């Protein structure tokens, strides 16, 4: 491998890595915001992405709706679905038995339900492709080849993340979410309605998953198992420290870039290993993740 090729691969790896990484970052963000506010890893996050993808596909292809209706409708549907799941199912489970394990099992249950549902409808039988939002045209950035679609994906993801961070940091509802994450009891004592906040957090997480689905669907073949992309989201979240929102974003981009480097420099067959290698490296070098705070000892 000559130095020229290395240089080319580096540029291409970073460019492609940032594009796919921005989608991983969105999924990681959706996972972490739920974990931060309810300490439940949501194992149905991938299926939320998948289900949102199929909602969009259904509206667009089978209902012939225009894209400008399909997109907000899909995001709204995912928001409502996730918020209702939190309200109707998880609240019931939490009331019946407070143990977090049961909540995790309930999210696993949802993932099976969603996958089963898509299989039932027959939609998922044949892998389908989602028509791209815009016709991809090739452009060069430095020596890296990307498409206009790639740029749209990256820009949209970054804007969505920026909006989310602004909401989380500066709005009253965002502050309430942070309060619930830090100390749910104190949040209740100042008058935060926990049920409402949990619904909104799940809704936002569902909405972000839907955006990730809309961005990634034109680039992948859609199947009922496309939710497995969530592996990358979880890897990104773990690399970032699992409780850090900025960590999730950085983790997402890192995983995307590492994945592309592995594909370019080693072998495309080794790509599946990339997230696990990244997780192991981080866990060995910095067990709390890149952005994970000091390990706090809880008072008992």
């Amino acid at each position, binding site marked *: 491998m000559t130095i020229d090729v290395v240089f080319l691969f580096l540029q291409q790896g970073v460019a492609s890595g940032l594009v796919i990484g921005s989608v991983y970052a969105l999924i990681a963000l959706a996972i972490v915001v739920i974990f931060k506010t309810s300490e439940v890893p949501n194992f149905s996050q991938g299926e939320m992405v998948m289900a949102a993808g199929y909602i969009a596909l259904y509206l667009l292809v089978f209902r012939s709706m225009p894209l400008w209706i399909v997109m907000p409708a899909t995001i709204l549907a995912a928001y409502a679905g996730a918020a209702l799941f939190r309200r109707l199912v998880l609240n019931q489970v939490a009331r019946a038995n407070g143990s977090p394990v049961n909540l995790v099992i309930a999210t696993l249950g949802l993932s099976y339900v969603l996958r089963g549902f898509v299989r039932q409808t027959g939609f998922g039988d044949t892998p389908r492709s989602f028509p791209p939002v815009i016709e991809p045209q090739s452009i060069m950035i430095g020596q890296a080849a990307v498409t206009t679609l790639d740029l749209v994906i990256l820009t949209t993801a970054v804007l969505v993340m920026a909006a989310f961070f602004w909401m989380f940091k500066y709005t009253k509802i965002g502050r309430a979410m942070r*309060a619930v994450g830090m100390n749910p009891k104190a949040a*209740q*004592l*100042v*008058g*935060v309605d926990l049920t409402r906040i949990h619904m909104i957090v799940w809704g936002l997480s569902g909405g972000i998953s839907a955006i990730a689905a809309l961005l990634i669907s034109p680039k992948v073949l859609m199947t009922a198992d496309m939710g497995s992309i969530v592996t990358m989201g979880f890897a990104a979240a773990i690399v970032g420290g699992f409780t850090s929102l900025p960590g999730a974003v950085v983790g997402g981009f890192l995983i995307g870039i590492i994945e592309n480097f592995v594909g370019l420099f080693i072998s495309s067959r080794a790509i599946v290993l990339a997230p696990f290698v990244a997780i192991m490296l981080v866990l060995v070098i910095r067990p709390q993740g890149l952005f994970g705070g000091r390990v706090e000892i809880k008072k008992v």
Partner: protein
Amino acid sequence: MPDLLELTGVSASYGRIQALSGVSLSVPEGSIVALLGSNGAGKTTTLNAISRLVPVQSGNIRFDGKPIESMASHRVVEGGVVQVPEGREVFRDMSVRENLEMGAYRRKDPKSVRADFERILDYFPKLRERLQQRAGTLSGGEQQMLLIGRALMARPRLLLLDEPSLGLSPVLVQQIFGFIDRLNKDGLTILLVEQNAAVALSTSSYAYILENGELALQGASKELRHDDSVRRTYLGH
């Protein structure tokens, strides 16, 4: 004075552990009433039943004449019943300012919220110096002040105080209780939970003593201070 808060036969449990059985007490408007008892007697549970953090099994809780025993916790806060919890229940990673602002979460009168903010910082000049500091890095005494300040930001009509003296030096205890006295003189009604019976009995006008989740004794604080059994068990002399 009419009772601002009234509990009648309140019971509460955590699974199989019966934490409260048939507790009745009342807090007249404008008074300081103390709730005493040793570790695990059920004092915190009583406050949490009022704040609607633990479910009430049976009995009634009335605030300002209206039943609140099946209200949601945020509605109780909105109604003016605000708790200062025991321990260091601040929002650790938020600044002192954000913590205080969180106290006014349910209020919709931004102008008077700002006025209250200034007034509370006048009460606690220490907090003013540290508005930008992360709450988790405050000392124990400062966190206690922050908790009281946060509760005041909700503009309470009834303040539920859970062991404000816990872990504080005698000087700070005096300071905090001087402050509690002042709030009361300014018209705030207070239900005070304490293990430090000496201080609590000299601050309050009436007191209840809990043992194993049941009321064991009650009376005017002045008289309880001279009661032999109280002196032996709770005052240690």
